[in-house]
């Protein structure tokens, strides 16, 4: 699917990735994808308060946040992560244009997922 010439120059692996996703099947897919790319998944977390707690306290490298968690927006988690300087990527079905300020310019992963998209975004975010 991906032409060799378009592979990102940098490959990230071995990252600890916080996964916030309220739908089991979708979470399962992302877990597999992340594992395939050589990352360790923290979660998945399906509840906002729990996710917020982890976001504020636990140690991890990046986060993948579903924008809509059981009808609630994931922005408080984003805020907590931003405060700690932890990079994150939104996963959304709305499209990037639906992200709210000040997160409009944050990277977004479109559902359904493209493996190389995920790979590229994580490579860009990893420290």
């Amino acid at each position, binding site marked *: 699917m991906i032409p060799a010439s378009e592979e990102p120059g940098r490959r990230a692996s071995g990252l600890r990735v916080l996964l916030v996703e309220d739908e089991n099947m*979708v979470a399962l*897919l992302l877990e597999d994808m992340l594992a395939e790319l050589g990352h360790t998944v923290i979660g998945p977390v399906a509840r906002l308060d729990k996710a917020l707690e982890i976001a504020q306290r636990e140690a991890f490298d990046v986060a993948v946040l579903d924008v809509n968690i059981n009808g609630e927006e994931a922005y408080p988690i984003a805020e907590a992560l931003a405060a700690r300087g932890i990079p994150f990527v939104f996963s*959304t*079905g709305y499209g990037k244009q639906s992200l709210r300020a000040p997160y409009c310019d944050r990277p977004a992963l*479109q559902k*359904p997922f493209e493996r190389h998209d995920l790979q590229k975004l994580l490579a860009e975010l990893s420290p």
Partner: protein
Amino acid sequence: MSNLSSHEIKTHFRNVQAISSGDRAHELLQALPVAVYTTDAKGRITFFNDAAAELWGRKPEIGAEEWCGTWRLYWPDGRPLPHDQCPMAVALKENRAIKGAEAIAERPDGTRIPIVPFPTPLRDESGALIGAINTVLEITERKDAEQVSQLLGAVVEGSHDAIISMNLNGTITTWNHGAERLFGYTAQEAVGNSVTLLYPPDRSDEAAGILGLIGRGEHLDHYETVRQRKDGSLVEVSFTLSQMKIAGGAIAGASTIVQDITGRREAEKARRNSEEQFRILADNIPALCWMAYADGWIYWYNRHWYEYTGTTPDSQEGWGWESVHDPKELPAVMERWKASLASGQPFEMVFPLKGADGVFRPFLTRVVPHRDEEGRLVRWLGTNTDISAERDAAARQRLLVDELNHRVKNTLATVQSIAAQLLKGTSDVELRETFDGRLVALSRTHDLLVRDSWEGASLRDLLIQEFEPHRSDEGTRFVVHGPDLGLNPKAALTLGMAFHELTTNAAKYGALSKPAGQVRVTWDVLRASGPSALRLKWMETGGPPVKKREHKGFGSTLIERGVSLDLEGEVRVDFDPSGLICTMEIPLAAAGAEK
């Protein structure tokens, strides 16, 4: 003018004659306030008094000039009258007195005076003619009065207004052409009749009142009533009535000037109606409306403006409207409005206006210039329409579409996950990638459709989106060329899938598998014969040599079935050795293109 009658003067001079030509007689003649002069039997002037010299404007030479001391003489009709034919000359030659002959005397300064001379021969005791005496009366005033009277007559007759005079009994005494035009009666028919001739039956009681007014010497100015024409039709009139007095001040009757005001009344009624209609309309349409002079000074708002803003006319007049604007937005509004005022161009803008409840709501504001017949801008007509309901509805719809999109995408991701679980453990990575690719392509087309509220998507956008991940930095891998074309959702989904298959194939085996390869997509719309059709050509160049058998698993079935079944079109894929060529022809009706 002298009060002496010609008879008195003559009597007077018969007495003078008896006194002969002595100093006493001259003294007496000199003192008279009328022009008097004498001649001898041959007509030579022997004496003239000061009044004569004043009348002539000169002093003739005694004993030398003949007949008359006038500079020049004319007949009343203006023909020159030689001195030797003047009444004095005739009186002497024929030896008889002449009374009341008119002539015109001209002074050296050019002024002309109508005169009536009374030349009378003078005889001695034997009856022999010894000369003549002439008394000359000016008739300027009499002439003027006659002329004025004639002039007035002409004015009355020529007036477009009806001018009628009547005596104290209400009997019509004069009737001009204007009256004939207005009422249909000729002067012959009207004069001698009572003015009640003109009264409609239901107004006959007006007559007594009006005649009473005349008798009491009162005036009526622009009294509006109804009168009846000869043909029975009614006419709305305005009349002004004034007394006519004869010498001594007694009231002899009245004159009336009557104007037909039907047209004026109707115009006024139409104007009032139109104004009232405008107010009703302006006060009942849901928009806020206003009018401003050419310089932008607002002089009128409709009722809704005051109701919505909770303001009063005093506070809003002119530029008072600034008070209901959001201070943050006002500078931009002001800039645009002043630009319109300067250019005379219509104004359109959306900005918030504060309601009486303190809440700002978005208003679509349109202002158009109103010009007069010469094209001068005379005023601005403005409307402000509350679009908060539309905005809310649009926002709600957006929210619904977003929510639906979110669900659809989550469902697709779930499907993706199910497939991934099933394929886990198989070694067919290509199968998983093909599946994911198709699912994502479907999802992206879906995004394009959602962006335009599921109304359709542009053919160009569809291609650009599919090509996006394969684009090179130089931007030379793709050529996309054709007229703008909107596709309906079904055509967008079908073609989106087809383009995905073609692109995937090109990336794996075709032009996109080589750095120098190029994909060229061109299309046009055929309108020459029969129904219009979209004809599209996909052409690859610069890829490795094409071998047909390598294309096992290529989604050509998907493309062919989609285009023929869903879009009633035709598709043809040629595995040309230099590059794959795919042509499609789809009826425009099925593609749903409206552009």
